[in-house]
């Protein structure tokens, strides 16, 4: 049953205790006329109904009280006044009597028995970090030429460090591979050790002999600078200076 039918908010905890209906049957005495007032349940069957057979009776105004055994409002469907035969129903009015259990849902009021204090749900807050926003990064990227150069130099340094790191890792990998190989070939290692032991005898041997003196000597004249080289170096310096000038 909806609020439109009841004229009020239909909520849980409400039970209908009775219905008062009234209408005026308009008919001739000799006509057959049957009026049924009731409510359907949610399946379309009558939840309750009351039938008046006016056949062979004078038509007049009727007011009737129908007690209901505390029917939960959730069971109420469409209400209707159905007629069969010759006649009509006028000035119909249906009044529902009800009781309301405010603690139908114990959580509706802290004073209700069975009320459990609810645990609040902490919402997951997503923190916006503007420094991680690509759009912000693009917008705040440096446009100053010196800063760009510094950044490029920084990038070059990073690339260099990365290359060195990769080289170290490659060497470490080789070392590890050799270690594994050595461990796998214990026999070879023992053999190599024995070989080294045998060679040490030769390392500790002393060669009997004196000093080897300088025997080469240069005769006369000065040692002249290489002009071609000097010229090249001069040109390079000039060239570098020219390059630096364009950034000032």
């Amino acid at each position, binding site marked *: 049953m909806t609020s439109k039918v009841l004229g009020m908010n239909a909520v849980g905890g409400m039970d209908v205790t009775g219905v008062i209906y009234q209408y005026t*049957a308009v008919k001739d005495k000799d006509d057959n006329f049957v009026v049924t007032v009731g409510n359907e349940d949610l399946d379309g069957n009558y939840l309750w109904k009351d039938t008046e057979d006016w056949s062979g*009776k*004078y038509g*007049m*105004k*009727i*007011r009737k009280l129908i007690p209901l055994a505390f029917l939960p409002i959730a069971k109420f469907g469409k209400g209707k006044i159905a007629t069969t035969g010759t006649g009509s129903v006028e000035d119909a009015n249906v009044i529902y009597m009800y009781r309301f259990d405010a603690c139908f849902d114990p959580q509706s009021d802290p004073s209700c028995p069975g009320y459990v204090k609810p645990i609040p749900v902490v919402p997951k807050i997503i923190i916006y970090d503007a420094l991680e926003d690509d759009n912000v990064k693009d917008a705040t990227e440096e446009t100053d030429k010196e800063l760009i150069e510094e950044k490029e130099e920084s990038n070059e340094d990073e690339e260099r460090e990365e290359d060195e790191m990769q080289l170290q890792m490659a060497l470490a990998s080789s070392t590890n591979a050799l270690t594994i190989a050595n461990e796998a070939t214990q026999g070879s290692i023992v053999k190599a050790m024995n070989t080294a032991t045998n060679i040490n005898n030769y390392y500790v041997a002393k060669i009997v002999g004196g000093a080897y003196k300088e025997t080469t000597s240069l005769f006369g004249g000065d040692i002249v600078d290489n002009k071609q080289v000097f010229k090249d170096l001069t040109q390079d310096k000039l060239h570098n200076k020219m390059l630096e000038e364009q950034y000032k």
Partner: protein
Amino acid sequence: MKYLLITLSLMLSATTAYAANIDITGTVQSRCIVNTDTAGMYGNPNAYTLTTVPASAGQLPIVRVDVSLANAYNAKISYPTSFSSSPSLGDTVAWTGAATVVQTSTSDMSGYQAASSLSGAMRTYALTVAGTTWFSVASVATYGGGQQKPFPGGSYKAVVLAECIAQ
């Protein structure tokens, strides 16, 4: 020996006299209740007429009669034939009225009006079905004995009599 004792006992009883009065109580609940549903009001469409007809700004009094036992009571409804209180009246008042079944709690009562009988200002209804019946009473008072004299100014009251009498 046992037999003798019993005989003796009887003999003792026979020689002693006892008397007792035992109350019998009972309550009879009314199975017919008369209630005022709507109080009446006289309208004054002209100087010499007082009427309960709604078209003349009056209000029909409505009496409700509840019976819980069928074929046990008669409802007797009388329209007024005199004022219970009024200013001093030096002329005659002509009274007319009618009692009518206006509403019932079941269609089985729809024949009450047709089956009722009228005696003077009183209409008698046989309450053959358990349930509730609403009666309205129309009352018209005309002053001056046909000469259309105006009612003296003041407050007027009249009484509708509704009775529930066992058949």
